[in-house]
């Protein structure tokens, strides 16, 4: 029974990825053939500078990196402030942070589009960046709310009486102690943006060609090989993040009580 379950798990987790690899390397492939009739690396040949997938990859990377940094910069002080609240204000603030996380991206995008269009940011990279930042800030604020709730504030007290100013304490003690959590938050922020489709589509209006949009376009136009290549590229960062987080979890030694 266990073997059957393991095979099922392997099929559901690795199966789609394996199919993507085969599809990206296959030429003609028609039902009911189990494998492609011919093999080719054509879909993996990128035209330097002018390749749509490479451009989309660059756009997605830029968006995800910037979103992660921006969201971290907002969520760290926000999470710290919220962690100091008690009673209903804390619950209310946590609910507010959770709202953009729980809301369907399509609904979020539709609402944000109105504001961003008004600001002249509709269809722009900056608009999409702001849109991605909304759920990312929600996620990271919740993450840092938990982090700062558990953070041992005594280290900051001790630092201050040892002669460190508030700024020195923040830079020399608090942030270094939170390095694992910040790295984790950057990865989460990156992935929130990286996997956005609906928000990019609605706010970007088709003008901002991030990788998920490009892959979708290939799927719709029947370019299955290119779609498979794009999809495989989409998988790489989450897989790398998974490995990184597992590694970091084993090394995390922080002043958390």
């Amino acid at each position, binding site marked *: 029974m266990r073997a059957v379950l393991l095979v099922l798990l392997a099929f559901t987790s690795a199966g789609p990825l394996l199919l993507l690899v085969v599809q990206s390397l296959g030429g003609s492939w028609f039902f009911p053939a189990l494998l492609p009739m011919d093999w080719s690396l054509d879909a993996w040949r990128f035209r330097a500078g002018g390749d749509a997938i490479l451009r989309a990859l660059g756009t997605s990377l830029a968006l995800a990196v910037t979103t992660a940094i921006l969201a971290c910069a907002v969520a760290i002080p926000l999470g710290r402030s919220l962690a100091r609240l008690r009673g209903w204000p804390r619950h209310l603030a946590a609910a507010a942070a959770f709202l953009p996380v729980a809301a369907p991206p399509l609904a979020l995008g539709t609402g944000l589009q109105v504001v961003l269009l008004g600001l002249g940011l509709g269809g722009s990279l900056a608009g999409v960046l702001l849109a991605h930042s909304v759920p990312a800030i929600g996620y990271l604020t919740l993450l840092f709310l938990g982090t700062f709730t558990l953070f*041992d504030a*005594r*280290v900051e*007290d*001790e*630092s*201050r*009486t*040892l*002669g*460190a*100013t*508030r700024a*020195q304490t923040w830079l*020399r*003690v608090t942030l*270094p*102690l939170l*390095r694992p959590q910040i790295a984790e938050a950057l990865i989460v922020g990156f992935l929130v943006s990286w996997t956005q489709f609906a928000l990019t589509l609605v706010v970007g209006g088709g003008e901002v060609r991030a990788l998920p949009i490009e892959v979708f376009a290939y799927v719709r136009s029947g370019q299955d090989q290119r779609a498979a290549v794009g999809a495989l590229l989409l998988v790489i960062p989450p897989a790398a993040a998974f490995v990184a987080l597992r590694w970091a979890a084993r090394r995390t*030694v*922080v*002043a958390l009580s």
Partner: protein
Amino acid sequence: MASRPASGHALHLHGVSLQFGDGRGITGLSLSVAAGERVVVLGPSGAGKTSLLRAVAGLTSIDSGSVRLGTVDVTHLPPERRDIVYLHQSPVLFSHLSVDENVAFPLRVRGERGQAVHARVSAALSAMRIGELGARATHTLSGGQRHRVALARAIAGRPGALLLDEPLSALDPTLRHEVREAIVAAQEEYGPAMMLVTHDLDDAGRLADRVAVLLDGRIAQVSTPAQLFARPATLAVARFLGLYQEVPGRIRADGAVASPLGVLAADALYATPLVAAQVVVAVRVEGLYVGPPAEEAVTGTVVAFRHRPGGTTAVVRLASGDQALELEATIPSRDASPSIGDVVGLTLDPRTPLVFPAAAPSCST
């Protein structure tokens, strides 16, 4: 005060009032700690000892009064500008820094670099007898080593005063001894004013030059440990110390005190001027002995034994009196050890009892 280096500054608290907990507070507290002196603030849990230390360190504010280090009024200065280091109950080390870097921290934040820092760190580690631990990561240290590193870091910057919050609580006896030694060594390094808080009489007795008893938001007594334990100033202090048993008494016309333990002469050691006829006679276990019943002695029945580190004592129920009174008494020698149910005589060492008004007077600073 023991002779020791005193290059720190005297710490003066004048009329300090502050609130803590659920509306409780400290009112008008004044206390001075000389450079090189160790003053232990002793009080029950919830007395505000930690709140007081945190306020002196600048981590919380006071409602009124002033805190002065040497000639500098630090009342309104932020913690980093007070030159007063506060150490938590359990050592709080910076886990992202090595032992060396932890100890160098107070020097680094004030911009010191190079050989001078290295020399100060080495000196502080050597004073704490952990010179070999410099390169270690903090999570590899034992409990005693962590305390020593925290103390080394505290003295590396040579602050004018050190505040230690319950530094020995929750430690096993061996570690307690080690940390106590480290505290003494830390202070002897250059003689800062040191203020410690504890609720442990043994710690207070071993560490303090003077003890300040904090009760009900006020300093109830300031004295040497020997004076405190021998002559608590009030019944409230005596009760807090828990060293005394209470026996009701009454002042007779001739000034002597009549009690179930007999009549105490008028020159008995009155701890406070008596203004009431009804009094409380406070008796220490060590001042009350069981012996063979004699005609002139107070007699009672042994009802239990209590086994303590210092020896076994007998609980004696007094035979006379309106109400049952049980007192714990020393058994002078093993040969004379009574059994449960034996009738024994009780002898009071006339030098040890203290007499207080039955209604404890309010504490005064």
